[in-house]
């Protein structure tokens, strides 16, 4: 089964500090992973995906096959980054899609 784990339920940092939200995966096959974000009073939405190699709102995520990780990073956190972040495996028709447990990021002024 495709599974991801997020070891931290809550991460609190000060504005301007670096941020790393951890995600580890444990399944075979091509690990094309996603990060979703849910800001306060907004719907859960895609933040970025591994296959796109993109940087969104200053966030990047590098796939480390040796460590089986897909950590989300930002060098300088902003208060508006405060949100709930979920790591997720790729979607395949009919699969039970199991998200990571989520990490709440709080950026303090």
């Amino acid at each position, binding site marked *: 089964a495709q599974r991801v784990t*997020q070891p931290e339920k809550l991460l609190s940092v000060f504005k301007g500090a670096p941020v790393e939200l951890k995600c580890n995966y444990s399944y075979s096959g091509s690990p*094309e992973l996603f990060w979703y974000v849910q800001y306060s009073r907004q719907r859960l939405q895609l933040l970025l*995906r591994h296959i796109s190699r993109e940087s969104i709102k200053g966030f990047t995520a590098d796939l480390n096959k040796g460590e089986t990780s897909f950590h989300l990073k930002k060098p300088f956190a902003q208060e508006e980054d405060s949100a709930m972040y*979920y790591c997720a495996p*790729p*979607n395949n*028709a*009919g699969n039970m899609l199991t*998200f990571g447990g*989520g990490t709440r990021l709080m950026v303090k002024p």
Partner: protein
Amino acid sequence: SQTIHQWPATLVQPVGSPLSLECTVEGTSNPNLYWYRQAAGRGLQLLFYSVGIGQISSEVPQNLSASRPQDRQFILSSKKLLLSDSGFYLCAFFLGEFNSPLHFGNGTRLTVT
């Protein structure tokens, strides 16, 4: 473009009462549809998914059921609500293309009193 609608936004129901949450998708056909529950401190839990009309899958025994009476309609139901059913329920769809993301509705906040 595709859109997803979920209602109601909030709901307060007494224990033992029935439940019906509705989700519809526009702008596409034959999407995969999902119901998730987001409980405080417990992340996202997949409740049901459907790959077609009348096809419902779930591996989580619970007090809830789901139905897909039409291609783009997904309903979450309960005959008798429990206090433990309180939570934030999210509907989502997926177009079936590899590496496409899930698209979520705005969610329903259910409080069982």
